[in-house]
């Protein structure tokens, strides 16, 4: 299995486990949270239900407070309770909208509450308001009465009446009427019954009549009218109004019916039921929550244990695998890798470790070292080769040079040869002519030789005569000498002459003998020559033939040399190619050398440590014989002579060429 796969599987497995645990925990927590939310929700609902009851109680309390005190302030809790209750019910309905029976319940509670409100509370409040109105009217009446305005006015009227000019009866009548009216008013006000007003009404109508009868003054009329209108009528109006209002007894009567309590009890019961249901739900939810929580705990505990187990197993397995693969401490291996990446191959390896990456690194370093050494060696070799190539190119170039030189030389030689051939041709023609002439002349020569032989023989004959003469002269000279001796002093001179003559004779003798032998040999020679001449004729013929052959050969040579000339031209072009080849070679060798140097430079990146000695045992190019210099091996003497053009008289214009011999085209 691949290391990556192992790691992926190992890490993946633990991660997968974690993922599963995570998912489980996530869902558990989520459900716990949801549960909690529901629990909280339930609590809220219960709380709200309680609050609802509270609002109900508030309303009741407010209503009661108001009923008792009649103070509007006490209505505040009622009103606020009412608003809050309505809002809360609405809200609670939304809250428990997931539970239709509860909503239904709430609806019925709401209805009950509204019923209570409209049928009970509103009624109470109305009654209490009425009571309050009555009390107000009573207090107004009291205040009017207390103000004493009625008594004062009555007193004024009494005084007016008493002081008037009216008859006493009238006066009494009028006062009686007034008292009746006052009594009726007081009875009415005290008893709150209209029937008590009768004296007043009677008095009032009687007063009008009695005033007219008594013809009472306007002042009295006005005063009575004032009392009636501004006091009595006002009080009666208020009293009548008060009589219509209810009193606390009515309220107590309504209380006593206990209808309100009925409603409230019902509401309480409904709410209790509502809460009961909610708390039942709560119990279920709490139980569920506990179960979830427990499950989560188990999942976490067992999941972690399982994951740890698998993780540990995998860690052990992978670690072992890694160590097997690495073969050593990862830091060591990393250090080695870094060293190698830095080109340092002089690493000391632990000899005991042979397996794994460490072992392989060791092998690699060794191999790399070998390779680097090899490359280095090869680069050196390349350098050597490039030098050799360079030398070869030089050799080629030198070869081209010497070939070119040779070609030139051959060319010149060919030219000379051609001249020679031409010379030969003309020479041979001349030779042929001469040979023919010679053959002719030989005939003449032969005749001449024959003549010569004859002449020679004649000469020999004549020479013999001369020889005889010389002999005789000798004898004569001898005789003369003898005679001269005899003559004594006188013959002395003659003796000298005789001696001279004798000497001459001897010489002549010798010459004759020589001539004789010469002529004999001449004859021989001539005869030989004759024989030779006879032989010569065929030889000359042969010569003529040979010369003709030479001529033909010369012509062939000429055409041959022309062919050679054209071949030389070709050779020149070949040489040129040769030279460009050598130039390319030189170029290439330079490039190879550069490459080798850069290779060396590159390879120098590697540090091989001091165990490696660059001992290239290749042929040192400097010891190579340089082909171009072979030729001058033999010229190391010091035989240079001083030779300059002005040291020797050179006249380049000593020719006898004259422009007069030439004309323009």
């Amino acid at each position, binding site marked *: 299995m691949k290391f990556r796969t192992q790691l992926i599987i190992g890490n993946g497995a633990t991660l997968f486990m974690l993922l599963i645990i995570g998912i489980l925990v996530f869902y558990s927590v989520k459900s716990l949270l949801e549960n909690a939310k529901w629990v909280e929700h339930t609590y809220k609902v219960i709380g709200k239900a309680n609050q609802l009851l509270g609002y109900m109680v508030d309303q009741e309390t407010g209503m009661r407070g108001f009923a008792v005190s009649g103070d509007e302030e006490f209505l505040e809790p009622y009103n606020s309770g009412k608003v809050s209750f309505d809002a809360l019910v609405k809200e609670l309905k939304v809250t428990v909208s997931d539970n239709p029976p509860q909503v239904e319940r709430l609806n019925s509670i709401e209805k009950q509450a509204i019923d209570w409100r409209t049928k009970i509370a509103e009624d109470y409040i109305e009654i209490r308001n009425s009571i309050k109105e009555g009390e107000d009217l009573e207090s107004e009446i009291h205040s009017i009465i207390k103000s004493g305005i009625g008594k004062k006015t009555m007193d004024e009227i009494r005084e007016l009446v008493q002081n008037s000019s009216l008859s006493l009866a009238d006066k009494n009548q009028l006062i009686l009427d007034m008292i009746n009216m006052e009594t009726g008013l007081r009875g009415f006000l005290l008893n709150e019954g209209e029937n008590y007003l009768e004296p007043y009404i009677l008095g009032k109508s009687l007063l009008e009549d009695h005033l007219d009868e008594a013809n009472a003054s306007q002042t009295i009329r006005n005063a009575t009218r004032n009392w009636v209108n501004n006091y009595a009528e006002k009080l009666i109006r208020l009293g009548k109004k008060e009589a219509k209002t209810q009193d606390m007894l009515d309220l107590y009567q309504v209380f006593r019916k206990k209808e309100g309590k009925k409603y409230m009890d019902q509401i309480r019961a409904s709410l209790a039921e509502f809460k009961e249901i909610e708390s039942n739900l709560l119990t279920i939810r709490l139980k569920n929550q506990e179960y979830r929580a427990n499950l989560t705990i188990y999942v976490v505990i067992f999941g972690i244990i399982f994951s740890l187990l698998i993780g540990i197993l995998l860690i052990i397995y992978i670690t072992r695998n890694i160590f097997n693969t690495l073969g050593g401490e990862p830091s060591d291996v990393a250090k080695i890798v870094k060293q190698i990446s830095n080109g340092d191959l002089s690493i000391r390896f632990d000899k005991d470790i042979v397996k794994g990456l460490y072992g392989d690194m060791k092998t690699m370093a060794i191999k790399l070292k070998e390779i680097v050494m090899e490359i280095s060696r090869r680069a050196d070799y390349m350098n050597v080769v490039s030098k050799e190539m*360079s030398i070869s*190119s*030089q050799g080629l*170039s*030198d070869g*081209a*040079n*010497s*070939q*070119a*030189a040779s070609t*030139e*030389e051959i*060319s*010149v*030689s060919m030219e000379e040869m051609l001249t020679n051939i031409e010379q030969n041709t003309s020479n041979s023609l001349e030779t042929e002519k001469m040979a023919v002439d010679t053959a002719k002349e030989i005939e003449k020569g032969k005749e001449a030789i024959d003549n010569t032989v004859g002449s020679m023989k004649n000469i020999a004959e004549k020479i013999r005569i001369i020889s005889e003469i010389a002999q005789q002269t000798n004898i004569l000279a001898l005789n003369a000498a003898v005679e001269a001796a005899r003559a004594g002093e006188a013959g002395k001179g003659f003796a000298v002459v005789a001696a001279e003559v004798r000497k001459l004779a001897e010489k002549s003798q010798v010459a004759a003998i020589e001539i004789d032998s010469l002529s004999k040999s001449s004859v021989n020679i001539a005869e030989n020559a004759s024989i030779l001449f006879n032989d010569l004729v065929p030889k000359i013929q042969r010569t003529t033939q040979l010369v003709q052959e030479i001529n033909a050969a010369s012509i062939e040579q000429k055409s041959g040399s022309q062919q050679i000339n054209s071949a030389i031209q070709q050779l*020149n072009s070949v*040489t*040129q190619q*040769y*030279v*460009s080849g*050598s*130039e390319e070679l*030189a170029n290439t060798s330079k490039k190879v050398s550069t490459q080798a140097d850069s290779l060396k430079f590159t390879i120098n990146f590697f540090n091989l440590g001091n165990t490696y000695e660059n001992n290239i045992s290749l042929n040192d190019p400097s010891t190579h014989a*340089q082909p*171009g*210099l*072979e*030729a*001058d091996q*033999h*010229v190391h*003497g*010091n*035989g*240079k*002579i001083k*030779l*300059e*053009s002005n*040291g*020797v008289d*050179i006249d*380049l*214009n*000593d*020719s006898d*060429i004259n*422009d007069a*011999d*030439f*004309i*323009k*085209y």
Partner: protein
Amino acid sequence: MLVHTEKENLKPREFRRLSQFVYQNFGILLPPSKRGMAESRLQIRLQALQMASYREYMDFVLSPAGKREVFSLIDRISTNKTDFFREGNHFKFLREVILPRHEKKFAYQELKVWSSGASSGEECYSIGISIEEYIRAHQRAINYSIIGTDISVFVLKQATGAVYPLEQVRKIPPEIVKRYFLRNKDAKKKIVRVEAKLRQKIKFQWLNLIDDHYNLFQEFDVIFCRNVLIYFDRKTQEAVIRKLCGKLRSGGYLLLGHSETISNVDFPLRRLGSTIYQKE
């Protein structure tokens, strides 16, 4: 007197003396393989001097009395192959590159050309004709001078004389021949001569390239050194090239023979093309 002569061969010992002498004095390399050539080339000298053996000849040459013979020896030993417009690419380069550039850069300066292996003068006259033709074609006035040097007096005399077999100018376009050559009155002689005006432009001088100092007191714009170096060994070649560079003005051109190259040694030369170099 008719005598059948069987000449003595050039013995290796004598050949060694000869090649050593020639190498030391003229730089010309005579490897053992050239013994036959040397023998045949010097035979004429032996005949001329009526000498029976090469040993005798070498003794003579190396003696003080033989100092003059050295010139004859080198006449025979040096190879003087040349031709009109030989290796035409150089003349093309002269016309198409050197002359236009010179004109552009040094309009009124004299263009100095040196033919360092002038041989019998064909190269010099070819250069002269090329320049003249350029002047003709472009209607320009280019001042120029050509000097031809050689190691062989014999060929220098030929060059000075400027007389050539008719055969040799056959390869030159006839109109050019008509323009620059004179024909001999005697048609049978089949010779032509370079006309005087062109001849005057060209001077010839004896010069040994391996001498330490060249008897030339100027720097040249162009040096032709073609098929000269091939007779030298590498060492001599390099020494000669160095000296030639010394006589070449900066930016001047050095033209070598078809087989000659400059490699490895760092001369102040830039290669412009095959056998064409420019001084840096």
